[in-house]
């Protein structure tokens, strides 16, 4: 009944029947090739979210008006899970027959990027199907180690047609992104049957900070050329323990909904060598103090990680240490935001001395580390340089947390009467 529908729509001002038609044709195209796509267009999902209850309750009901797919836009964005389809030329031939012009954006497969000298694999990251004045942006999502989905950046190669569509207006592709695997829901909106994320608002929330940073594999390889990796049994063992500790910590904090990032030596290891630094002896995480929850300590204890020490208090310089398996320690530093910087605190147990570590402001990005999707500061270089100085590229085995960091400041002494509270050692 599309034709009927378009008449109705045609009478309404500000509506774009072309868009609706193109989307319908596209859905027909991919259905004919059994390719499951889902809608991730943020503008439409925003509208859908407002009516989500109604849409859920009437999955088949005819629409009285075209509410979602008729707003005049250049694009409508869909997602495709790579593993659910086989790259076949047949799709493009059918698309052409239907009048679509299409563009495929390929690039290196990041899942193999971390590896020495593999080639032959470029994977499709984005497709654009254009018909008349409207284009469908199809973003390809890949499953990666760490149980998450990844989409690539959209970068045009030298001879690509830069005017194929107004690329700058695309909602996806400025950066690569990381997402949880979404639960999908089949709905009927504007008389089109389409899959959407079951919870559009949480998808949109996720989208707003989905930016993903790839590890710097090439630099890491260069680092190991210069400083060959420690392949001793001890190093192998430590890395294994650090990895499982990090996995356990991530699970625990994620369950509590506490956002965290790789900090200090763990962050340096990721940034410099894409791996755990074998002589670092602990795992360091950062958490904004506003995300602090009292459940943290019991949750870790329940996970088999007893509290080792607690320094500071919520208002000032809070720091928690948990004892992992086999002498590997988990340090959680709480970060305090000021107008022009962010800091965390340190405490020397025997003297009650306080220290302060200053960082320039940063935002959080996703990355993959030891088969885990975790946050790191997006502005990693500034973060690492603040902490380790300009020579962070040179491995240092002797590290004194009170004097070595280049961003450390002496911050006075805890009043003696507070010691019982701010210096707890178990």
């Amino acid at each position, binding site marked *: 009944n599309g034709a009927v529908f378009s008449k109705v729509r045609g009478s309404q001002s500000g509506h774009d029947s072309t868009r609706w038609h193109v989307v319908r044709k596209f859905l027909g195209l991919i259905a004919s090739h059994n390719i499951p796509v889902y809608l991730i267009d943020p503008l439409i999902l925003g509208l859908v979210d407002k009516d989500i209850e109604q849409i859920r309750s009437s999955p088949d009901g005819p629409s009285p008006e075209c509410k979602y797919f008729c707003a005049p836009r250049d694009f409508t964005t869909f997602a495709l899970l790579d593993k659910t389809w086989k790259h076949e030329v047949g799709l493009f031939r059918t698309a052409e027959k239907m009048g679509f012009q299409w563009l495929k954006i390929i690039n290196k497969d990041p899942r*193999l990027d971390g590896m*020495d*000298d*593999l080639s*032959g694999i470029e994977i499709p990251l984005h497709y654009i199907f254009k018909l008349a004045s409207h284009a469908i942006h199809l973003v390809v999502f890949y499953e990666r*180690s760490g149980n998450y989905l990844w989409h690539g950046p959209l970068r045009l190669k030298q001879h690509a047609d830069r005017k194929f569509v107004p690329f700058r207006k695309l909602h996806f592709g400025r950066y690569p992104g990381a997402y949880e695997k979404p639960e999908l829901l089949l709905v009927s909106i504007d008389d089109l049957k389409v899959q959407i994320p079951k919870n559009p608002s949480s998808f949109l929330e996720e989208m707003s900070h989905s930016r993903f940073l790839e590890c710097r594999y090439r630099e890491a390889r260069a680092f190991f050329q210069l400083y060959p990796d420690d*392949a001793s049994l001890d190093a192998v063992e430590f890395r294994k323990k650090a990895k499982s500790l990090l996995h356990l910590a991530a699970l625990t904090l994620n369950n509590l909904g506490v956002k965290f990032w790789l900090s200090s030596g763990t962050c340096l290891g990721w940034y410099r060598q894409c791996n755990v630094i074998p002589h670092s002896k602990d795992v360091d995480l950062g958490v904004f103090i506003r995300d602090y929850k009292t459940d943290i300590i019991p949750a870790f204890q329940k996970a088999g990680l007893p509290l080792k020490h607690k320094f500071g208090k919520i208002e000032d310089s809070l720091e928690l240490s948990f004892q992992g398996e086999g002498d590997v320690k988990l340090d959680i530093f709480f970060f305090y935001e000021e107008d022009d910087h962010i800091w965390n605190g340190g405490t020397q147990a025997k003297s009650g001395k306080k220290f302060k570590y200053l960082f320039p402001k940063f935002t959080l990005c996703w990355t993959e580390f030891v*088969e885990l999707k975790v946050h790191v500061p997006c502005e990693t270089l500034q973060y690492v340089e603040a902490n380790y100085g300009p020579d962070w590229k040179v491995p240092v085995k002797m590290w004194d947390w009170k004097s070595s960091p280049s961003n450390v400041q002496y911050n006075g002494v805890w009043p003696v009467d507070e010691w019982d509270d701010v210096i707890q050692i178990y």
Partner: protein
Amino acid sequence: MDEWKPNPAIKPHKKRSWYLAWKYKLMNQRTLRKLCQTGAVLFLLVTVIVNIKLILDTRRAAYEEEEESAQDYDDELLNVEVPRHPVSNKKVLDVEVYSSRSKVYVAVDGTTVLEDEAREQGRGIHVIVLNQATGHVMAKRVFDTYSPHEDEAMVLFLNMVARGRILIFTIKDEGSFHLKDTAKNVLKSLGSQVAPFLSWRDMWTFVGKKGGELYGEKHAKSPALSTWGDPVLLKTEVHLTSVEDAECRWPDTELNRRRKRFCSKVEGYGSVCSCKDPTPIEFNPDPLKDNKVFDVPVAVIAGNRPNYLYRMLRSLLSAQGVNPQMITVFIDGYYEEPMDVVELFGLSGIQHTPISIKNARVSQHYKASLTATFNLFPDAKFAVVLEEDLDISVDFFSFLSQSIHLLEEDESLYCISAWNDQGYEHTAEDPSLLYRVETMPGLGWVLRKSLYKDELEPKWPTPEKLWDWDMWMRMPEQRKGRECIIPDISRSYHFGIVGLNMNGYFHEAYFKKHKFNTVPNVQLKNVESLRKDAYETEIHRLLGEAEVLDHSKNPCEDSFVPDTEGRVYVMFIRMEQEADFTTWTQLAKCLHIWDLDVRGNHKGLWRLFRKKNHFLVVGVPASPYSSKKPSSVTPIYMEPPAKEEGAVAVPAVAAAEQT
């Protein structure tokens, strides 16, 4: 051939001359031989040893050379890249072919497509196949027709080349000694006028079209046995046909488009490129019910043996329950032809820049392939690892589907392998039977992700350690007492005879007679009894039921086992401690099974079949099953041969690995 007179003074190849000299002396002096028969026997013995060594050397040399020339091929293809367009628009190709004692080359339109002036290498007839429409090199081979049987390989190859292709021949050094009439007739049928008369150390070049024109031929006769013919340089022109004429008219389908791309690029794959009746490239074997390994990634480890890879992938894609989307072929090096094969079958392939040399190169390639596999399939708990020189049994996936849960649940397992080291035609019988063994056979196996990620990957041997990956995996530090599950009848067959640690002799002796299951849908027996503790119960039950053989007889003799079927027999051999395999090795030798190192044992017990009876061998007193030995029975001891004899029986390949 009439002119040929054996003359020890002539040295066609320094290395081999003394051997040849002896051989021919032996043939001519028949009267003498009667007088010194014992001497002759000794001679024969020496000849055998030398022969073996010679075969080994030649094979090794041939392999290295193949690698070398393949390397050249890459570079040249890059060069060919440039004139590609001019070539395809032009109607005429200039071809230059050079033949001489120490150097051959072929240039097409000024681009060198073959150049070989390496010493002691590349002897024989070099063959190049060009596409008659584009002028592209489609195949490049060298057949050392100075040596036996190479002419047969050449005939096979030439027969596979499609009609209309342009063939270029040139001889380096010597190419006639073992060029028999059949081969000469084939060359003649291709239009050569000289081939039937080619003789010792003649130089020869020839350009022709298969089934058609002769474009040119030049020949220089060797004036005397001790010298070579003068170098010859043939310059000729070849008229290109239209692309349409060079291609078959297959219906325009997705599959045929792949076929077309493949067949216009490479030659030597036989009926896959046949115009009339091309062999299928999609197989659609029956799916497996309740397939537990449908989502398990399959890594195919490959080098530059595209013909092997072709055979391997055919059998893999024909196996029931195969899921082509899970298959990735990892090619060690930037070789085009293996990639062409991968694309022909619509699979995905990844090339890997070679790191290190020889065994370490293979080892690094394995690591990269395994890591990539788990990166590409992050959900996978296992990976199936295959090599390019294996046939895959029709019930390979069915076998794995029925057993994979054991690898998931039983921590004492190291792997599941499709290969039984001791499963020869005469020692394997029951396709439904599985064993637990302490050795890791490889050759088609399943790797647990956690084992790889947590244990193996972090300490994988680095490139400077020239280790075999499989030997390393067999070391106690890695295996940690864990065992592998194997079938009695192997689900893979090792057909490769050219390889890093492989040659014809070795293959004949240890791999050719391996049993390979061809029965589909075999229902495995008693899979649950393969779990750690259950297996002990099972073994005790078996030993309890087994009849003790007559230990006064010679275990090597056929009569050692009664002429029955379906019975269970046990014998006891001497095995002083866990690592004492003296008697076992001798027994393995006389039973003609794997004896180069110890394989297939489980706590000092070996299980195999003899005359269709289950045959158990227990090492006493080291094995915990020694208690089953009746006190009246004395374990059999077999002495290793004396040192010198040992040197004869175990040739230089003793250390060779079955990769």
